[in-house]
């Protein structure tokens, strides 16, 4: 079992009067950045990095980052900057990027270089995920949405080739053209950092992940459609002639642990307050319907069972929740409680979906630094050790234990020297070709 920690790094500004249940509603593209407070921004970026360091200390295997553009619910507009800092200030955990929005960049060679540098500085701890991005990403960087899927596939092929093929070479594709590819940086991991794919709605993307034999991570979806979508992955793998398993699938959802049930409820309710992502089920905010239907961004017909749920969360009247807190508690898309009460619920999710990777989405919405740190401490002390036992018992290997491409068990790599300033080593397993 691979256990990761995630927060979307919301721009929390109680003074603004905006943001969900605590104030004026927001809709995508409808809030000007003239309200942006640099002092607050500086504080929050440092806070979220501090929480990541603590998450590593508390035993998380992965520190997950994501990227969105032009929105207060996610401050990671340049996620690779955060990842670069984590590469240097953390020592053991994987840096899991879910992911770079590859179709929106006209120069994927720059990603080849950035990501290889992060992999080198972290000495091989990068997990390099790709996403297609939502409408706001295409709008923010004026990337052509109708070529999103074509550009995604071509950029992936180009980046992998640039990581694995000796230069110089020429690339003349449909969307990208380079006459002299010869970056003076190569990834630490061989043949290249693992590539994962997170998603919510696109059937094309999930089938692509199955075809490429790379792990697919479902983001904050309801359990039943998630299970159906994962079954589609497993069925596709079988058709393609390989056996997929827990190592091929991951699930991210909202889990918060606290000292008492009262504190857990107070903090848990903050998930649906503050500037949280209106694209994902149950959050506050109103999805701009034009962004949901940006022409050609996602196939209108080739969608996953989870799409229905994702759609339900969007586009309602301003300030109206897609699904109220109580309903999310009832269906386990939010789990909040003391270690004693969250563990049986987490076990239920693991038994039902059988993922090899899980990500706890915490410290989000209107949660404070203190809320996040209490939860991280309790996760480290009580929850993570118990989940490791559960995963053993339920036979849920992660993608660093069993190779998602071949189904063969991976041996832990020998201890390697980590960042020079730490002097400490670790037993992080190495992905084999």
């Amino acid at each position, binding site marked *: 079992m691979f256990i990761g920690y995630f927060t979307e790094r919301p721009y929390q500004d109680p003074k603004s009067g905006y943001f969900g249940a605590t104030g004026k509603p927001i809709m995508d*593209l409808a809030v000007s950045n003239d309200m942006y407070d640099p002092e607050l921004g500086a504080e929050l970026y440092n806070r979220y990095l501090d929480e990541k360091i603590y998450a590593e200390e508390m035993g998380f295997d992965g520190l997950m980052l994501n990227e969105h553009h032009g929105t207060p619910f996610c401050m990671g507009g340049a996620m690779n900057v955060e990842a670069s800092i984590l590469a240097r200030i953390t020592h053991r955990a994987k840096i899991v990027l879910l992911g770079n929005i590859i179709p929106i960049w006209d120069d994927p060679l720059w990603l080849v270089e950035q990501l290889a540098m992060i992999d080198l500085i972290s000495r091989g701890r990068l997990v390099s995920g790709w996403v297609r991005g939502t409408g706001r990403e295409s709008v923010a960087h004026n990337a052509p*949405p*109708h070529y999103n899927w074509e550009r995604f596939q071509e950029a992936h092929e180009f980046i992998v080739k640039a990581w694995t093929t000796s230069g110089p070479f020429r690339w003349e594709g449909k969307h990208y053209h380079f006459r002299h590819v010869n970056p003076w940086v190569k990834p630490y991991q061989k043949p290249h950092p693992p590539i994962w794919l997170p998603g919510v709605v696109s059937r094309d993307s999930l089938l692509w992940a199955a075809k490429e034999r790379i792990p697919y991570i479902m983001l904050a979806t309801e359990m039943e459609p998630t299970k159906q979508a994962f079954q589609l992955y497993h069925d596709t793998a079988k058709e393609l002639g390989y056996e997929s398993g827990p190592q091929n699938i991951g699930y991210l959802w909202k889990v918060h642990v606290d000292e008492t049930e009262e504190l857990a409820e107070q903090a848990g309710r903050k998930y649906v307050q503050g500037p949280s992502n209106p694209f994902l089920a149950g959050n506050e905010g109103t999805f701009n319907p*034009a962004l949901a*239907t*940006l022409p*050609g961004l996602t196939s209108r017909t080739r969608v996953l069972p989870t799409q229905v749920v994702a759609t339900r969360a969007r586009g309602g009247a301003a300030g109206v929740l897609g699904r109220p807190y109580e309903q999310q508690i009832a269906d386990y898309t939010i789990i909040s409680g003391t270690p004693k009460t969250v563990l049986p619920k987490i076990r239920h999710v693991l038994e039902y979906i059988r993922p090899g990777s899980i990500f706890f989405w915490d410290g989000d919405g209107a949660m404070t630094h203190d809320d996040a740190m209490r939860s991280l401490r309790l996760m480290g002390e009580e929850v993570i050790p118990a989940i490791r036992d559960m995963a053993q018992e339920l036979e849920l290997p992660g993608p660093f234990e069993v190779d998602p491409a071949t189904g063969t068990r991976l041996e832990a790599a020998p201890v390697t020297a980590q960042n020079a300033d730490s002097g400490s080593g670790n037993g992080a397993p190495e992905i084999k070709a």
Partner: protein
Amino acid sequence: MTTSTEPWTEEIVEVAGTRLQLVKGGSGAPLLILHDELGHPGWLHFHEALAQQHTLYIPFHPGFGRLEGLDWITNMRDMAGWYLDALDDLGLGPVPAIGLSLGGWLAAEMATMCPGQFKQLVLVGAMGIRPPSGQIYDMFLEVAKQYLTVGYFNSANTPEFQKICPDTPTPEQAEAWEMAREEACRLGWRPYMHYPSLPPLLRRLRKLPTLIVWGRQDAIVPLSAAEVYHTSIPGSQLVVLDNCGHHPEIEQADEFVRHVQAFLS
């Protein structure tokens, strides 16, 4: 898909390497109508009026109707090049043409490549030029219904607006809008609905009689773009209609038809 009760017919024709959905109606010499960014809205009053003296040819641009588009068409100049080939196959020699909004941009690009293709040209609220003041309204930051509403000075006072944009569109209508938006996106995502080199190339239209028709209150393509068309095409005429948005052919249909008929005759 011919119906006997309608004053028009629809057929699929093989032209320029693909299948084209073509609406035809009326009698008399051919008149080509190039539809706007949301596709052909159906047979309207202005069609009926113009069809009294002309046989209207209303092709669905590739990708805008029920048929798939052409993968190699990635910008308006590709589309214009394909269209010239298609008009050859249709036998539409020097033909009068009306280009509406995105269709006006298309017509202008075709005319710069091959001014002899057209006998006369009518550009109506045409995209294609970056307005020197104001900006072309961003159709991709709105849903289709909202975009349609912005296109009228007074949609409540435009009887045909309900037909074009009903309160509850049928699933077929909604799907047609999405198809059109997707193709419009391929043609005009960036630069947004214009091409910087169009104005200097428009000089080639100096021997082509050109009428530019604009609504004074056009909130989609500002009037300043009409003035650039007018000054870039030597000898062109500019008609600006009052109390009129982006669709003179619908919102001020009678006056529009009167100007067009006078120009074509």
